């Protein structure tokens, strides 16, 4: 029963996953642009964010229209509200991918003061946390939400590690300060990717349990 109702929820879930995939692709572009110092690819990543922003608005409108026309209740309502909230977090993760691309563009012609190891790890981790957070939301997967949120500790540790190394490099040679500061800022931004993925996971739990959970 309520075939259209069910189809519309499925459609919203597909849009959420589509948005997540767009963000994941852009994180990959930014990652490659950083590691291969490819300014052209960085520009592509910056431009591609427009599609993410468009989809955020489209999903928001779709959810609002669904509430207005179908008047969902209980688990369905919680799920739509969770999607409405989480879609902003996905969009912010997309913005952080753009930030990484901008740094890649700035640093494309500079020699790195150290090989980039942990920052690419952070980008990959952010990508996976975003993918799994959205997956846990659309699939009502409690265990995946909790496991994904737990990975934020790795993200925090990577951020600390990057900062320690960059600080040492700045003490070592003041000429490193300019680039190290940029990389430190990038690391802090990437750490925020993890925080937004955790928020997506907490919305997934809200959708399943009907309660706000601290993750």
């Amino acid at each position: 029963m309520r075939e259209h109702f069910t189809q519309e929820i499925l459609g919203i879930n597909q849009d959420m996953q589509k948005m997540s995939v767009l963000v994941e692709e852009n994180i990959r572009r930014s990652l490659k642009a950083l590691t291969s110092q490819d300014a052209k690819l960085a520009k592509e990543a910056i431009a591609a964010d427009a599609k993410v922003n468009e989809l955020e608005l489209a999903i928001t409108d779709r959810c609002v229209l669904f509430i207005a026309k179908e008047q969902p209740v209980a688990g369905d309502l919680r799920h739509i509200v969770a999607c409405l909230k989480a879609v902003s977090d996905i969009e912010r993760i997309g913005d952080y991918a753009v930030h990484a691309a901008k740094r890649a563009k700035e640093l494309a012609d500079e020699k790195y003061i150290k090989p980039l190891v942990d920052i690419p790890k952070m980008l990959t981790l952010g990508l996976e946390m975003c993918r799994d957070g959205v997956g846990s939301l659309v699939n009502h997967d409690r265990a995946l939400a909790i496991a994904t949120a737990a990975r934020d500790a790795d993200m925090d540790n990577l951020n600390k590690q990057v900062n320690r190394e960059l600080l040492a490099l700045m003490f070592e040679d003041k000429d490193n300060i300019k680039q190290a500061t940029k990389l430190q800022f990038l690391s802090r931004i990437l750490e925020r990717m993890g925080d937004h993925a955790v928020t997506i996971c907490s919305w997934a739990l809200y959708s399943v349990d009907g309660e706000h959970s601290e993750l």
Partner: protein
Amino acid sequence: MNPETSAGLDLKGVNIFYGDFHAVHNLSMTFQSREITALIGPSGCGKSTLLRSLNRMNDLIPSSRTEGEVIFHGKNIYDADVDPVQVRRWIGMVFQKPNPFPKTIFENVAWGARINGYKGDMEELVVTSIQRVALWDEVKDKLQKPALALSGGQQQRLCIARTIAVKPEIILMDEPTSALDPISTAKIEDLLDELKKSYTIIIVTHNMQQAGRVSDKAAFMLTGVMEEFGPTDQIFFNPKNPKTEAYISGRFG
């Protein structure tokens, strides 16, 4: 029974039969005083049967039999020494379709009080009752006009005025807005909010949004069984019973 004290209803092991058909199964619950409780469930689940048992309207159906207790002011309304007509004064009912008498607006409201031998100021009673249902401004200049000339929404508010004119403590409502347009429905819903300050209200509705909007508690019935009963916020936000969730979200019924 002492109508001066609290005015809820306690059901203890209520079973209702129509001949051999077991319509309501072993139901125990409390309708709290000055709250609105919505009875929800698919057609044939027993909610209207239950509602009619609360003021012994089922007595009027020859094959109907009610077992268990419906306690009102500490007394089972089904006890042999209780007059069912008196029960219906304390516990009034508003029906799905507005059913004013083919009389004037004034006489419709005065009727119940008059046959009960009301000795007070009848005009004051009628005016107050009509004012309480927010109908006064619309009918004050035509109290002697036929009630049947009113719109459906006005007729239903008049029927509510007629019900409260006999000063009940509990009002039972069987889909009171299902025959009304959205504006008239909104007026009745606003009225319910006002009435619950003075009366205990039990409403049967098929409109889930209405149940969510107007009630403090909601009870979901299925095939004569009370599947879930709790605060409306919980029933509509996070029901404990998957059958309740399936029903309120329109997946069956």
